[in-house]
C-alpha cells in the first residue's frame, strides 16, 4: 500500500489574463515509511502541492490519495492522519510552548501524555522553556515546537514545507537527524526544500521545476543517471573563462560552482581538445563526480 499517490494534479492561479500554472500535471507515489524529498527552487510549486495534499487547497484536476483516502472526498479522514508544518511559523505567538502543544493535542482529541514518546526527543529540547510564549522563542526552537505540534497526534504522513529555510547550519543538521529518527518510528515523511545538499539525506527525491517533475529517483539513482563527463575548471579570470567555455561546441553547459566552474561535455571525445586549449593558458581542469545540483542543472537544461 502506498502512503501517498498523486496522479496528474494540475493547479493554476489567477484569471485568464495572468494565469500562473503552479502545477502542470504532477504524478508520483510515496511508499510507506519513506523519507521523500521534493527539491525545487522558489516558485516551483512545492507549497501548492503540499497544500493540495493536506486538503487546504483544491486541485483544478487530477487525483491524490493519502493512505488510500481521497484528498477531496475523504478530507476529514485525512486531517485525522496527516501532520503539516507550514513553511511560515504559524502557531499562536501569544500562547506558551506548552499551551500551544496542548491546544493542538486537543484539536486532535488526544493529549500530550498519550503521544509523548513520539515527540520526546524533540520536545525535551524545548521543554525547559515550556512557559515561554511561542513568539519569544528563537528560530530553531520555534521550528522544534512546530514539529512537535505537527506530530502530537501521531500522524501517519508528515508534510514539512521548507522546514529548514532560514535556519542555521547546525540546527539544520539536527533537524534532519530528527527526521531520520521519526522515519524509524514508521512515519512517512514528505519534505520540501530548496537546498540541494539536503537531497542526499532523503530516501528518494523528486526534482520539481516550474510545476513539472523532472525526475523521481533515489539520490544515488539521480546521480547515477548523470552520464556525461563533468569537469571542474579554475583560472585567474573566472568570468572570462566561463564565457569562453560556453563558446565551445563540445561543451554542453558551464556554470559557476563554488570557487570552480563546472563544465559538462557532450561526450568523452570532446574533452581533450578543450582541456588542451585551456591547459596552455594555465587553467586548472580536472574531472569531478557529479552531485545532485549538477544533475538538477542538467535536467533543467534538457527540459528547456
Amino acid at each position: 500500500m502506498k502512503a501517498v499517490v498523486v496522479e496528474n494534479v494540475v493547479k493554476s492561479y489567477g484569471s485568464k489574463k495572468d494565469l500562473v500554472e503552479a502545477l502542470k500535471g504532477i504524478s508520483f507515489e510515496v511508499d510507506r515509511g519513506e523519507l521523500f524529498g521534493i527539491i525545487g527552487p522558489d516558485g516551483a510549486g512545492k507549497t501548492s502541492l503540499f497544500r493540495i495534499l493536506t486538503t487546504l487547497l483544491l486541485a483544478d484536476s487530477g487525483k491524490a490519495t493519502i493512505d488510500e483516502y481521497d484528498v477531496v472526498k475523504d478530507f476529514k479522514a485525512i486531517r485525522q492522519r496527516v501532520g503539516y508544518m507550514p513553511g511560515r511559523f504559524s502557531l499562536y505567538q501569544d500562547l506558551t510552548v506548552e499551551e500551544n502543544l496542548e491546544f493542538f493535542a486537543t484539536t486532535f482529541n488526544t493529549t500530550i501524555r498519550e503521544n509523548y514518546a513520539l515527540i520526546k526527543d524533540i520536545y525535551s529540547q524545548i521543554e525547559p522553556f515550556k512557559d515561554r510564549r511561542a513568539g519569544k522563542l528563537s528560530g530553531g526552537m520555534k521550528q522544534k515546537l512546530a514539529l512537535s505540534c505537527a506530530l502530537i497526534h501521531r500522524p501517519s504522513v508528515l508534510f514539512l514545507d521548507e522546514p529548514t529555510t532560514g535556519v542555521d547550519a547546525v540546527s539544520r543538521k539536527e533537524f534532519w537527524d530528527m527526521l531520520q529518527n521519526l522515519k524509524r518510528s514508521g512515519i512517512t515523511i514528505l519534505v520540501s526544500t530548496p537546498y540541494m545538499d539536503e537531497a542526499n539525506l532523503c530516501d528518494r527525491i523528486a526534482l520539481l521545476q516550474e510545476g513539472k517533475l523532472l525526475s523521481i529517483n533515489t539520490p544515488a539513482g539521480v546521480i547515477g543517471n548523470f552520464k556525461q563527463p563533468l569537469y571542474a575548471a579554475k583560472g585567474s579570470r573566472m568570468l572570462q573563462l566561463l564565457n569562453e567555455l560556453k563558446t565551445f561546441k563540445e561543451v554542453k553547459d558551464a556554470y559557476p560552482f563554488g570557487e570552480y566552474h563546472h563544465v559538462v561535455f557532450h561526450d568523452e571525445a570532446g574533452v581533450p581538445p578543450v582541456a588542451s586549449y585551456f591547459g596552455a593558458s594555465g587553467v586548472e581542469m580536472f574531472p569531478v563526480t557529479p552531485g545532485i545540483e549538477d544533475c538538477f542543472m542538467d535536467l533543467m537544461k534538457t527540459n528547456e
Partner: protein
Amino acid sequence: MRTLRFLLQKEFRQIFRDPAILRIIFVMPIIQLLILPWAADYEVKHVNLSVADHDHSSYSRLLISKVTSSGYFNLISYNNSFHAALEEVEQNKADVVLEIPAKFEQTIVKENEGTLFIAVNAINGVKANLGGAYLRSIIQDYNREVRLKWIQFPRFSPETSIEVHSSNWYNPLQNYKYFMVPGILVILVTMVGSFLAAMNIVKEKEIGTIEQINVTPVKKHYFILGKLIPFWVLGLFILTMGLLVTWLAYGIVPVGSFITIYIYAAIYLLAILGLGLLVSTMAGTQQQAMLISFFMMMVFILLSGLYTSIESMPVWAQWITKFNPVTYFIEVMRMVILKGSGLADISRQIIIIIGFAIVLNTWAAISYKKRV
C-alpha cells in the same frame, strides 16, 4: 464539546493576554460614556454676541442686560457702529450682531414701535439658526414686558386666544443626556461585537494559524463558535460596564427592566457577530478589516438616529436606516431606559433583529470557506 471547551479556553487566554484588547474593553466604554455625552450637546450655548448700540438709552441697556442674563449669550463687544460689530464677525469672534438703531427709545415711546436688526454668522448652520431664534424669543419677551408696563390689560381678553401648555413625557427636563447615553452605549456594544470579533478572526488568517487549524479535524462550526462566544460574552460585559457608568455618572436608571435590555442585547449581539464574521471573510489582513469596519461604523453612527432624528432625513436615507441594525437597538435602549417599554412593546424590533441575525449569519457561513 470538549474541543469547543478548549477552543474557548484558548480564545479567552489570548484575549486576556492582549493588553490592547483589555484596554479597549475596560477603558473605552468608560471614557466614551464620560466624554461623548457632554460633547454631543444639542443646546447651543455660548453664542458670542456683538452689540452695535446707536441709542445708548435706558431701554437699550435693559434689552442688552436681558439678552446677556439669559445665559446663552456672551457679550463680547459693545460698539458704536455696525461696521465695528461686523468686523468681529469677520474675525470669527462674534456669532451674532444685534444692532440697536439711534432713537430706539424715542420711537418706542412716541410711536409705539421700534426696529432692531440681527445679523447672524451662518457658517455653522446650527449655531446660527438657534442663536438667532434664541435672540428673537428674548426680544419678544422684552417686547411683552414693555407693553405690560404701559398698557393695562383688561381682566378678560377681548379677543379669543388659545394658550398652549405642553408637558414633556418620559424626559420631563428634556435632558439630552438621557437620550444620548443609551445610544452611545449601543455603539460601544456594536464595536466590540462586530469589529473586535472580525479583527480576531482576520488575525488568525494573517498570522497563518488558521492554516494550522484547518489541517486539524476541528469542525468549521466549532471554530466559528469558539470565536463568537467569547465576543458575545464580552459584548454583554461591556453593556454591563456601560450601564454601570450611566448610573454612576449620570444617574440614569432604566425605567424598564434590565432583563428586557439583556434579552434584546443577547439577540442583537448574535446579529452583529454575524456581521463581524462576514467582515472577516471579506478581509485578508487586519488593515483591510480595519478599513471596512471604519467605513461601516461611520454609516452605522450617522444613519442610526443616534445624533440626528431619522424622521428628518430624506426618504432614501430613511430606507438605509431600516437596514442598519444599530437603529433598532438604539430605539430599544431609549424605549426601555426612558419609557420603560417591556418585551411586548419592542416585539417589532426583536423580530427584525432576529431576521438580521439569520441573514447575516447565513451569509457569513456561506462565504466562510474552510478551504482557503
